[in-house]
């Protein structure tokens, strides 16, 4: 077998991270494909085997079928050695709970959470979770594109306007 670096010459600074991705929806599948092709070691956790079709014909990564809120499943996915955990199921609360399990119990260094509800994303950001909210990103970037403003940094998009606060 050829050495890993040769197989993936585009890994330029030798940084291959072990990543666990929860959820093989559109975001999860795309993330797994991108990370794998950049030479990271990805394990995907998905409850529904049907969803794996999103990965295409050849799986780019390791897959564990199961519920990501169960320790057994997380451990099987290699959470104990993982450098990062990204929760991108379509259930906000599932993502939020899984992220906190992983953060508290397995001390994973980077934990990212997809939260579809902008207010919930904002609340959990304040509580210390790294939450990305797709609605906020799309709204902000569409606005800037429309008025020909240069794009800003992600944190400037990833917030809620004061009018939306409760």
């Amino acid at each position: 077998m050829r050495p890993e670096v040769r197989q993936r010459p585009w890994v330029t600074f030798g940084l291959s991270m072990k990543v666990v991705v929860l959820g093989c929806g559109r975001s999860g599948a795309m993330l797994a494909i991108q990370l794998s092709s950049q030479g990271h070691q990805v394990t995907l956790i998905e409850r529904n085997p049907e969803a794996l079709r999103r990965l295409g014909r050849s799986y780019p990564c390791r897959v564990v079928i199961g519920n990501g809120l169960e320790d057994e499943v997380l451990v099987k996915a290699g959470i104990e050695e993982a450098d990062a955990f990204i929760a991108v199921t379509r259930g906000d609360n599932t993502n939020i709970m899984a992220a906190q399990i992983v953060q508290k119990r397995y001390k994973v260094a980077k934990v990212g959470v997809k939260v579809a509800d902008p207010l919930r994303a904002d609340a959990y950001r304040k509580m210390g979770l790294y939450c990305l909210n797709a609605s906020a990103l799309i709204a902000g970037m569409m606005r800037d594109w429309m008025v020909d403003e240069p794009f800003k940094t992600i944190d400037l998009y990833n917030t809620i306007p004061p009018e939306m606060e409760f």
Partner: protein
Amino acid sequence: MYLILVGGGNVGQQLARRLIAKEHEVLILEKEGSQAQRLSNILGEDYVMHGDGCELHTQKAAGFNRADVVVAVTGEDEDNLVICQLAKFIWAVERVVARVNDPSHEAIFREIGIDDTVSATGIIYSLIDQRLEQDEIVPVGALHRGHVEVVEAVLTGRSPIVGKQVRDIQLPQGTYIVYLLRDQVGQTVDGDTVLKNGDMVVALVPTDRADELRTVMCSGT
């Protein structure tokens, strides 16, 4: 008291019924429209609100900011966790209680900061467990958010502490034998007390030392 229950299944409904009977101010939040309608037919429409209790807008409308207690009793642990966390950290609700459906989640709820959890499986199991093991020390209550347990044990002839003075017993650190029931008569315990076969003793023990106490008090197994 103002109590908000999130989740209008069997547990939520029965709980609401009891609390209403006690003349508390009660609101039950139910996500499914048809179930919310059914509940308001049964309980009265003042007690029921249709909405997703995980959403901050719904929580605001329900008056989370002035709730004394929020109880999350949906069938999904992840929902119950989020409801309780938002209630506690965003709305500063004094007391939050979560139903935990999967008993293996209880520990993580506590690690995340939700101390009051109720798991039906856990309760039933501990009841069965208590009946099964006679030489056991039985937890009868928890103090200080579960860090200290009140336990009772009936001493049998096999117990290594029978016949000893309390002062001579090597108890785990922080543990006290506080009370004794002998021949149906309760008495306080001091260093001179000699323990007898058949005594029921009550002790306070730090939760993480309960196993040590079991070894000291029971047959040593």
